[in-house]
């Protein structure tokens, strides 16, 4: 374009895409470490496998698309997707699930839609949904149990590694995710009875609470660095609470509000998934509505659905609605009496 002459502004800020990605990765580390501390080496091993396969998959599709490989890889977005997948997938799941998920995220969800910034869906969540519906068995039974609950030590690094690489299966104790577990149990037991079961003696949600707090810490870091805005996360919490508060009044049949907030992927989803800029809404109001929708859907799918956690499906459903939300949530521009909303220009506009 001939228009691309040198013109104002002549100075640029020091921000770069890769810096943003790297900070998000850094912000996810406390959560990853907390997961590894309570649930064993599986998460770290998974993350490494996911990152490597995501980077390789991106390199391959870039070559196929005849795009610069190294320059694109440098933006670290593939690494980020790998890390997000690593902390989402079950720690005892076999290696090929990681590879399939990462490859699908990179090739189908990201690059078939045009690459970085063009994807309609959140790559990590779409890939999670893919492996969850494709391999229901390993995806629901490969969750690890903290030592304080099972009474058995977590597998050593080499045991975990050979299990995940399918060299030698480790015969450890796995259980459903805390959310899933509580959901099934509360149908038969009262809340008091449930608190007496071995899984809950160590506390209502031992381990997972700290994991959520660690993700919260990372999220606050991102807010502080102004890499994300508060609208999405607050929207998600609001949406979730709007349903969870009234419905959890009966403690003997519903999950407590605190479990909704801190026993699943809620905090992770709020700060690391809902805030994914490419697949979320654009304006601040839009981001809030996007998060709110994710919150509502998450509650519904968790409570009345069959899946262990609902963030992924809720996010995917809201991803589809994001362009629509955008059209109705344009901010009011300076000097305009009201925001331009919808798909048509208002009559009186010039």
């Amino acid at each position, binding site marked *: 374009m001939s228009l691309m002459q040198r013109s104002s502004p002549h100075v640029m800020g020091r921000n770069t895409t890769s810096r943003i990605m790297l900070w998000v990765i850094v912000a996810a580390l406390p959560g990853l470490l907390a997961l590894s501390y309570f649930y064993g080496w599986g998460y770290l091993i998974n993350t490494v496998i996911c990152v490597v396969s995501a980077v390789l998959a991106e390199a391959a599709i870039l070559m196929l698309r005849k795009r610069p490989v190294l320059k694109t890889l440098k933006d670290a977005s593939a690494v980020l997707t790998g890390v997000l997948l690593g902390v989402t997938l079950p720690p005892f799941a076999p290696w090929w699930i990681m590879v399939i998920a990462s490859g699908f995220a990179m090739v189908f969800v990201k690059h078939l839609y045009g690459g970085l910034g063009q994807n309609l869906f959140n790559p990590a969540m779409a890939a999670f949904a893919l492996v969850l519906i*494709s*391999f229901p068995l390993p995806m629901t039974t490969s969750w690890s149990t903290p030592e304080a609950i099972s009474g058995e030590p977590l597998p050593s690094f080499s045991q975990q590694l050979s299990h995940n690489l399918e060299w030698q299966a480790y015969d450890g104790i796995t259980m459903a995710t805390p959310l899933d577990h509580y959901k099934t149990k509360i149908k038969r037991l009262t809340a008091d009875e449930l608190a007496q079961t071995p899984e809950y003696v160590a506390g209502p949600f031992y381990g997972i609470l700290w994991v959520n707090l660690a993700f919260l810490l990372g999220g606050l870091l991102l807010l502080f660095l102004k890499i994300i805005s508060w609208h999405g996360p607050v929207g998600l919490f609001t949406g979730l609470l709007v349903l969870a508060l009234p419905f959890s009044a009966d403690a003997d049949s519903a999950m407590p509000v605190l479990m909704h907030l801190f026993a699943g992927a809620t905090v992770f989803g709020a700060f690391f998934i809902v805030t994914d800029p490419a697949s979320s809404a654009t304006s601040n109001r839009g981001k809030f509505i996007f998060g709110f929708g994710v919150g509502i859907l998450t509650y519904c799918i968790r409570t009345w659905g069959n899946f262990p956690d609902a963030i992924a499906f809720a996010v995917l459903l809201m991803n589809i609605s994001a362009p629509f939300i955008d059209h109705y949530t344009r901010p009011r521009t300076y000097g305009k009496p009201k925001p331009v909303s919808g798909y048509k220009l208002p009559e009186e506009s010039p």
Partner: protein
Amino acid sequence: MSIESHSPAPAVQNPTQDIIKDGLWRNNPALVQLLGLCPLLAVSGTVVNALGLGIATLLVLIGSNVAVSLIRNHVQDTVRLPAFVMIIASFTTTAELIMQAYAFELYQILGIFIPLIVTNCIILGRAEGFARKNTVWRSLVDGTMMGIGFMGILLLLGIIREVIGQGTLFAGMELMFGPAAVNWKWVIIPDYSQFLFAVLPPGAFVALGLLIAGKNVIDDRQKQRVQKAVDDQPALSRRVRVTGHIH
């Protein structure tokens, strides 16, 4: 005021070869016209399902094309659609009865999709778009080729989805070919845990998308080759004026 004439449209003067090419590749009902997607995506989970539906559709398509072509000069325009649907419905019922008789289990698996052939856009589309204006022979060729084109894609999808979804090929062929076919099942990946995504409809969408992309790639290459051949030829004295095409 309209001076549009209501005389039947003139017969399209395709040589037979063109009809064949159209059905199998250039105007493939599944890859290009994107018709009949519902059965295409719903029953292409295994090869045997795909084959069953493919053959049924092929037979109905041939029958309806020939029948429509036969009556093309004797049916009033205003009532042609009901007539065509009647014809298609009769052939579909016939196919359904034949299947019940000879491949009852497969018939049960394919279920509603056999009667639904009536509403398959390909069949009505060919009746309305081709057989209504062409001779019986040409309609026969068109029906056959379109049917084979559709069945081919159905089979391809079946192969892809069966291999990826279940790790086998030709499982359950006995449903169609009797007990002799029990041994046809070919386990490609032993101890395969199912890849449900490929078995479920979303997998069909993705696989079809990839097939369409593949066809486009082949067409593009072909075009480039032709273009190159044209470019390589010495410049002709005749100047060709091209207007109204900016790509």
